[in-house]
């Protein structure tokens, strides 16, 4: 296939990718968009295979079959709660591929590369490698193969500094025309270790931000690979992903009330320890309640807002919650779900989990939309959510989560909190809400409690 034809077809691929992202603006068309993107990807692969002077088709065919099979099986079997890890894993392999491409190119053309190409090769190897190892660590942390807590050791800064220094020196040497093979291996190795060191100190709760960032990294690595291979489809698609990943990372940081630098370099959990121990003892107590009482409250309410959090996902109670909501709706109660931007393990994760349980998406309301509705709500049913409902974020300037956007559940006429115990959430701070006079607590596993609630509502 000639260069002009393949360039034109690659352009079609780019357009399909843009459409795929564009269609994601509404759940109605999103799925179609994804297919359009997949079709574009297939086109790009076919066009590439038709390139003049290409050989080793058997090798490529076998490799594609293996990769596709692994990817398809992984994607089909993964549980929806494990989605963040899965994204991390697929992201890592993409980064790994970019790094390997750089290795091969350097092996073939070392010394004969122009500065631009050599620099792109360095970037592709460097970013791809960081993204690969970083994503694997993120995966291991989320999968709980490695402790989700921040892992810090003494002298870490020094070690990191040395690794970065080594990578930068090697990178500059190569870009300036250094052609020894060991240089690129050294660079890839340094970047690999750096990826590990970079993600290890970050806590499990912040992992989604990291994954999004690494996603952007892989995009940039792909873009750099495009410069190495003079391939526009790689440059443009990579840049598209790089830009969107970066933006998404910033949005997430905003929803968590954290700057991205803070996520990456400050160990949040440690700062909290001091604040958590300060407890105002003003005689208010926590009131526990029973499923029967809650069933009565819910059944005779006009409007109920369910506030699901990660606790609900952990307990796999989505299906039961939907059943409960349907029962209430049959009794004429208006039910809506309030979704905080960071509910679940990554932005929009809770929407996916509830969609899996067949909750219609028009019942899911985003924070800005639902907050004005709380004052007209009879019961706010908080299931396994904590920090995102803490009124301290609005009122208490000394609170570490002050300023974080929250769901105003405390403005509802009454609040029922379903929770395992009084343990604090991710941020490690107490929740004022639990001491509020209109709040009652229903302790226990979310799934068991909801099942009991369903039985109680039915028997009314």
């Amino acid at each position, binding site marked *: 296939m000639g260069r002009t034809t393949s360039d034109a077809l690659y352009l079609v*691929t780019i357009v399909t990718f*843009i459409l*795929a*992202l564009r269609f*994601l*603006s509404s*759940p109605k068309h*999103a799925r179609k*968009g*994804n297919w359009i993107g997949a079709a574009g*990807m297939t086109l*790009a692969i076919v066009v*590439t*295979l038709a*390139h003049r*002077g*290409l050989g*080793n088709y058997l090798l*490529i065919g076998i*490799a594609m*079959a*293996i*990769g*596709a099979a*692994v*990817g*398809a099986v*992984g*994607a*089909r079997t993964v549980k929806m709660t494990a*989605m963040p890890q899965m994204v991390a*894993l*697929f*992201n890592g*392999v993409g980064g*790994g*591929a970019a790094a*390997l*491409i750089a290795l*091969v190119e350097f*092996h073939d053309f070392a010394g004969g590369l122009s500065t631009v190409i050599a620099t792109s090769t360095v970037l592709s190897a460097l970013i791809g490698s960081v993204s690969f190892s970083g994503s694997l660590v993120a995966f291991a942390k989320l999968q709980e193969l490695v402790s989700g807590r921040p892992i810090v050791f003494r002298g870490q800064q020094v070690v990191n500094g040395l690794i970065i220094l080594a990578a930068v020196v090697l990178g500059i040497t190569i870009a300036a025309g250094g052609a020894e093979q060991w240089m690129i291996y050294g660079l890839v190795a340094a970047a690999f270790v750096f990826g590990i060191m970079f993600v290890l100190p970050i806590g499990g709760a912040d992992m989604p931000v990291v994954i999004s960032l690494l996603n952007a990294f892989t*995009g940039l*690595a*792909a873009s750099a*690979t495009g410069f190495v291979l003079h*391939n526009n489809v790689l440059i*443009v698609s*990579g840049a*598209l*992903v*790089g*830009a*969107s990943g970066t933006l998404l990372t910033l949005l997430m940081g905003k929803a968590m009330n954290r700057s991205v630098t803070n996520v990456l370099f400050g160990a949040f959990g440690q700062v909290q320890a001091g604040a958590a121990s300060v407890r105002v003892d003003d005689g208010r107590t926590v009131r526990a309640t029973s499923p029967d009482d809650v069933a009565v409250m819910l059944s005779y309410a006009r409007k109920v807002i369910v506030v699901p959090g990660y606790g609900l996902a952990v307990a796999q109670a989505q299906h039961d919650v939907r059943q409960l909501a349907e029962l209430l709706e049959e009794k004429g109660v208006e039910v809506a779900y309030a979704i905080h*931007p960071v509910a679940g393990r*990554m932005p*929009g994760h809770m*929407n996916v989990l509830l*969609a899996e349980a*067949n909750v219609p*998406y028009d019942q899911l309301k985003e924070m800005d939309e639902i907050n004005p509705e709380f004052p007209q709500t009879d019961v706010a049913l908080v299931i396994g959510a904590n920090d995102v409902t803490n009124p301290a974020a609005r009122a208490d300037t000394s609170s570490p989560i002050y300023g974080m956007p929250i769901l105003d559940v405390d403005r509802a006429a009454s609040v029922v909190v379903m929770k395992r115990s009084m343990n604090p959430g991710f941020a490690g701070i107490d929740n004022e809400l639990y001491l509020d006079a209109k709040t009652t607590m229903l302790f226990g596993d979310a799934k068991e409690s909801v099942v009991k609630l369903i039985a109680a509502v039915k028997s009314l």
Partner: protein
Amino acid sequence: MTILVLAIFLGIEVISKVPTMLHTPLMSGTNAIHGIVIVGAILVAGTADDGFTKIVGFVAVVLAAANVVGGFVVTDRMLQMFRRREPRRGPHDE
């Protein structure tokens, strides 16, 4: 370089229109898109002529193919679950 800058702007423009509700599929969708490195992987594997480049090229294609297929399939699985209110019970109801 021009196209790079344009692509970045386009990326920001398109993404800012995606609602929070769909951010997880968005992440996995963009994840699938950077699987485009498969094009690069095929190019290097297809021109490899010694043992080293063949092996590395092979691994690169495996990784990239997993990225592409896994990314699109998982995104599709998520998106197919988003449905509207009308059909009270979907065909896949458990």
